[in-house]
């Protein structure tokens, strides 16, 4: 391989899958080590900081729950941006990015739901409340699962990508409406909820581990996303080679 030609000089060079694979191969070890390092620092901070005088030890759940929730939303934003890339610029890597972000985003959404539930049990006394935030997240989870199911149901990757992109974008436009409607619904059904967590600003004591953990989870997301994209490119390459081989065999 000529090393020079593989250098990424501009954003458009990223459109070349071969260059992307080479770049991903070079970046991945660094990103993975950074992720491990950040998690090491973050987890140490998580367990060494003082417990909250009100919530006790359960405040430590927040260090996982909140970053997971952020990443669940960021995952969908990444998908929406990629969907725009697919539909508007027909960027060849955009549909790969959208497809690979879905399982990872769904994983983080599930994590946010599970930890939220585990947080809710000792704090609110119940595993699940139809709280506005929880409900919107549950709907987000359903949307992720629907998109994964759609990707799995279609054979032709290119066509699946465009159709999924439409759905992702409509879902993205819909998220504020869903959020708004669920808020409305929630205030209607449980006025003056005492179950809400105190909306006060987070104490700096808790902010530091939270931020480090958020960074660690973000790094983890991008590491996984990059690796999954590389695999997806390989998968398509394999399919193309198989077709090629079949065609060659047929014409020979």
């Amino acid at each position, binding site marked *: 391989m000529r090393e020079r030609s593989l250098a990424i000089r501009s954003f458009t060079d990223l459109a*070349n899958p071969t260059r992307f694979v080479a770049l991903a191969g070079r970046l991945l070890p660094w990103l993975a080590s950074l992720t491990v390092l950040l998690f090491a620092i973050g987890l140490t901070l998580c367990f060494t900081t003082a417990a909250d005088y009100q919530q006790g030890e359960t405040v430590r759940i927040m260090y996982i729950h909140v970053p997971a929730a952020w990443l669940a939303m960021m995952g969908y934003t990444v998908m929406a941006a990629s969907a725009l890339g697919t539909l508007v610029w027909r960027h060849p890597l955009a549909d790969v990015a959208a497809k690979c972000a879905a*399982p990872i985003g769904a994983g983080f959404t599930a994590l946010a739901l599970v930890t939220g539930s585990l947080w809710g049990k000792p704090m609110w006394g119940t595993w699940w409340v139809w709280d506005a935030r929880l409900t919107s997240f549950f709907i987000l989870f359903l949307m992720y699962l629907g998109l994964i199911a759609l990707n799995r149901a279609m054979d032709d990757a290119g066509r699946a990508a465009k159709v999924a992109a439409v759905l992702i974008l409509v879902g993205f436009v819909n998220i504020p409406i869903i959020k708004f409607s669920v808020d409305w619904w929630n205030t209607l059904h449980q006025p003056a909820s005492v179950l809400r967590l105190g909306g006060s600003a987070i104490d700096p004591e808790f902010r530091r581990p939270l931020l480090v953990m958020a960074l660690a989870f973000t790094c983890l997301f991008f590491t996984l996303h990059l690796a999954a994209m590389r695999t997806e490119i390989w998968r398509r390459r394999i399919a193309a080679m198989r077709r090629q081989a079949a065609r060659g065999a047929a014409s020979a």
Partner: protein
Amino acid sequence: MSAHLAYVAASYGAALLVVAGLVSWVVLDARARRRELQALEEAGIRRRSAGGGAP
């Protein structure tokens, strides 16, 4: 307090489970594809534009 600790442990366990699941999915998938790619290349099948085009 100890009961609360169980919830904390469970949520960290869940996080571990989800992260481990995602990581192993990505790693195993990558390994399988890489092996497949190698097998195909050994069989003498090249991409149309071997050396740097889009597949």
